[in-house]
């Protein structure tokens, strides 16, 4: 895999009228799968569409595969694949017809029949685009993004509105693309999608990147984790707190049910169990809760992802 970034966005600003959609955004995406995660209206689509050459930055610079997406679109377009959030197909065209057409615009396209089979588009038959189901329309748009054998694929909410089966088929295709050396930038507001697919996650809120890293790094670094256990009611929580590292919390939530908050690592677990041993407590139902990207997001922005 190439080591230089596939996408480099520096201090991007994009306004629509008086509304600032993207507000000084910096993003570096390396080869692999990068998920751009954020609530609706965070600036995900604007950022991606600037990379695709649809929008001209008000300020800042955008480079995709080292090229300017607006001024060097002739060189860039054959090398990227684009899946729009919706539409993009003649309402009177059949799925296979449109896919074959896009394939014809490329020098070395994928085998169209195999792609139709792979994405379950064969059942569309002679149905025209406007009468396809939402899921079929989504899968056709995905197929159109990859058929030209691009180096880099942009997928704008590729699984929005898909049933679980179709969603997994999409995930499988993204994994295969990655395995074959295709880089993918995808926007999503499903954290499980980002956790499942992405090498790198950029969390966007109010037009800025508020955190970036691998899903593991973000979950470890951003949020504190929780350890729960049950014991006899009325334990001396203050004494437990003294035994713990300084930045931890401890509380009895309901009688006999305790919660310890902090960086939960093997050392902390040992500290808690040895305190229990000293106080003649048999801790039961010990559980460690790893924070999800959703928790990280809540912590960073104070907002629900699916708002």
């Amino acid at each position: 895999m190439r080591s230089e970034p596939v996408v480099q966005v520096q201090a991007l600003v994009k306004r629509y009228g008086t509304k600032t959609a993207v507000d000084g955004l910096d993003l570096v995406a390396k080869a692999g799968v990068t998920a751009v995660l954020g609530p609706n209206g965070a600036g995900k689509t604007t950022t991606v569409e600037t990379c695709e050459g649809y929008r001209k930055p008000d300020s800042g610079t955008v480079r995709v595969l080292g090229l300017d997406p607006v001024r060097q679109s002739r060189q860039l377009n054959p090398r990227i694949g684009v899946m729009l959030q919706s539409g993009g197909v003649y309402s009177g065209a059949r799925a296979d017809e449109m896919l074959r057409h896009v394939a014809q615009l490329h020098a070395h396209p994928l085998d169209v029949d195999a792609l139709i089979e792979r994405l379950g588009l064969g059942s569309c038959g002679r149905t025209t685009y406007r009468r396809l189901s939402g899921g079929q329309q989504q899968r056709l748009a995905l197929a159109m993004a990859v058929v030209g054998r691009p180096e880099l694929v942009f997928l704008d909410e590729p699984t929005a509105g898909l049933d679980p089966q179709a969603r997994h088929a999409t995930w499988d295709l993204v994994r295969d693309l990655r395995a074959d050396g295709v880089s993918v930038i995808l926007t999503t507001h499903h954290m499980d999608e980002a956790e499942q697919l992405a090498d790198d996650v950029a969390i966007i809120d109010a037009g800025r990147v508020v955190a970036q890293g691998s899903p593991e790094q973000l979950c470890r670094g951003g949020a504190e984790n929780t350890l729960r256990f049950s014991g006899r009611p009325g334990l001396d929580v203050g004494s437990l707190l003294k035994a713990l590292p300084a930045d931890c919390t401890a509380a009895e939530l309901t009688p006999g049910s305790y919660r310890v908050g902090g960086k939960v690592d093997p050392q902390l677990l040992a500290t808690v169990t040895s305190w229990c041993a000293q106080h003649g407590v048999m801790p039961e139902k010990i559980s460690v809760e790893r924070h999800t990207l959703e928790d990280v997001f809540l912590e960073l922005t104070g907002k629900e992802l699916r708002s």
Partner: protein
Amino acid sequence: MTAGTAGTTGTYAPRPGAAPLPRMIGAQAALETKMLLRNGEQLLLTVVIPTLLLVLFSSVDIVDTGAGEAVDFLTPGVLALAVMSTAFTGQAIATGFERRYGVLKRLASSPLPRWGLMAAKTLAVLVTEVLQIVLLTVIAFALGWSPHGNPFAVLLLLVLGTAAFSGLGLLMAGTLKAEATLGAANLVFLLLLVGGGVIVPLDKFPAGAQDVLGLLPISALSDGLRDVLQHGAGMPWGNLGILGVWAVVGLAAAGKFFRWE
């Protein structure tokens, strides 16, 4: 749907590249033409209405078409109408909805350059016009049409008319909402059908109105075609001039104001 294959098979390994330009434009023009011919409303405008008007008014004496055979008066007008229906009305409506449904947007990120898309659209319009003209000419001959004049002048009128109507159609499609374009393009079609010398001679209108109506692209085209085909005139420079001005103004405005999404 098949499950994902584990590991690298190389199926999707990048191998990017644009197809040769002629192939892209050819494929695009073929698809655009196919979409147009598949669309029922478009066929109504481009084929059914011109054919019906030609047959009906040639065989039934409803409109006073002046001296000579009705078909000799009507055929040039209906040919002008056919050009307008495809280059203006049909193209405006189709392009308006392509813009609305993100087709133009999606194609803008494909290897096909924007000018290539416009060239393909023009080709699709020309192919459709050739089919229309062949059909209408065959019907006109069956109705006893006897054309005169210089075929080169006819060709020039048709080309300039196409350019003028394309510019205006694209201007409308690229600036108005798709529904507004649909309504307005049909309305303009109807108004120009009545007031543009297609089936009703312009001299049936009051003198003041005639001067204004004569400057419309449809009047210039139908009048120019009639001068040549019915009366055997040479180059109808006046009408060619009017069409030329519309073409330049329309295409320049479309180029400046067209919004791709």
